[in-house]
């Protein structure tokens, strides 16, 4: 099993969700995060003081998937989240050791 972790622009969440739905992936966790890569922040000015905002708001989307579809999921996320401009984000794939469904106690692939 794999854990697909994607850092995306907040405005692309709905497209990513729909793309994953069409792959029959129906569960995900979304966290509001801040970060930067090559995208520079921007400067703001408050009462005459200019200050740089380095961190930009992003969303972290985490999906636990079967090994077999990890690549397809990653590609789908990339297509949906891409805008072509700096700051589109990154996708990480991590090894997932174990999964448990809390309600029923199922483990492994049937818990995904």
């Amino acid at each position: 099993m794999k854990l697909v972790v994607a850092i995306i622009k907040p405005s692309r969440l709905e497209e990513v969700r729909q793309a994953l739905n069409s792959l029959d992936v129906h569960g995900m966790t979304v966290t509001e995060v801040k970060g930067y890569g090559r995208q520079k922040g921007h400067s703001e000015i408050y009462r005459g003081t200019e200050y740089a905002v380095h961190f930009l708001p992003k969303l972290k989307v985490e999906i636990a998937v079967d090994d077999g579809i990890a690549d397809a999921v990653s590609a789908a996320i990339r297509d949906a989240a891409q805008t072509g401009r700096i700051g589109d984000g990154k996708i990480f794939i991590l090894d997932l050791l174990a999964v448990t469904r809390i309600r029923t106690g199922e483990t492994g692939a049937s818990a995904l």
Partner: protein
Amino acid sequence: MTGFKTPLKIAGGVALASLLLSLPALGQDAAPAEEAAATLSEGVSADVVFILNSFLMILGGILVFWMAAGFAMVEAGMVRTKNVSMQLLKNVSLFAVACLMYYVIGYNLMYPLGNWAMGSDETGGYLGAFGIAVLEAVGITADGADDFSYAATSSDFFFQVMFCATTASIVSGTLAERIKLLPFLIFTAVLTALIYPIQASWKWGGGFLDSQFGFLDFAGSTVVHSVGGWAALAGVILLGARRGKYNADGSVNAMPGSSMPLATLGVFILWMGWYGFNGASQLAMGSVGDVADVGRIMANTNAGAVGGALAALILTAIIYKKVDLTFVLNGALAGLVAVTAEPLTPGLGTATLIGAVGGLIVVFSVPLLDRLKLDDVVGAIPVHLLAGIWGTIAVVFTNPDATLGGQLISIIIVGIFVFVVSFVVWFILKSIMGLRPTAEDEDLGLDKAEVGVEAYPEFK
């Protein structure tokens, strides 16, 4: 059908009898009737004048009271979320302390009505009377009034106590986010019991600034606003800036406020309250001239805010390429402060321009204070002290009874008195109990450290 004929006849008979019986009475009372007619054709009776004057101040007091909500919202919006509860607590409690002090000692100190402890009406009053405020008895008639030519003492006290609380409110904005509650409230008690009433007596109580220098300050650009500003300035010098505000190399770190909607709401509330602050300071509404003046004052008050807001808007757009909302808000308030010294005599255009200069002052002086490492969180010193000084000077442009010398010397005397006494009080408090929370508490936020009630507990 037959039922009402008899009652109708009886009623008709009673009416006719009443008319006939009253005719001699009308004849006997011919003289008073003529007098009543004479009074009506000249204006209103003395009773009605008293009533209208008192009503103006009752209404004005309610509006000035509402400014407390304005201050609370402006300050809550301009501080960070971790300090909002503390700021609100300061606003509510300083209001209560101010009103209590004004009742216990401030009112009579400010309005000794000739019974000066030091000085006299003729040669100059310096220290007013000591005693708690006493209102007229319940249900007075005209001869039970303290001053029948003016208004009910109750309405006068109710109106004036709000001015005292307003002065205290000014100080809390500057010193936000790094002052302990107790020393702040103790200072407020001294400010409202002694500092404010004593200097106010010099002008509004008929004291020496009024009688010896011809000082004019209609609604308190100096007496209220600059006083709050001087007290805040003394405090901010001794208190120091917020942790992390200024870097060693002189650069400044911005600490944006938590809620622009609250800050904006607060300004509109203050703007509305100012109609009472200035309008009701006419202290009279029982004649054609007086009520027209009250309306004129309100229109000019609005014009001042308008000028200040627009000046700040245009100026920040030019200087920073972006319009800073908080400057526009400050600008409107500075405009209001600027016209407060003389909201009656200018025309609408002049009032707008006077307010505009207030807005200019704010945009230039806020960064200046930062350069001096005076951390004024809401801009109260530019708005109330600097615009207040400007407004006091501007009186000479529209009111021929004012002299530049009289205005300037009064500004200086009040300034020295308030600043020095405030500085001493802040210094004593700093020495005895310290003014600041610990560094850890300041970083944690005063809501958690001192208040125990977070303003936004679900917002993590």
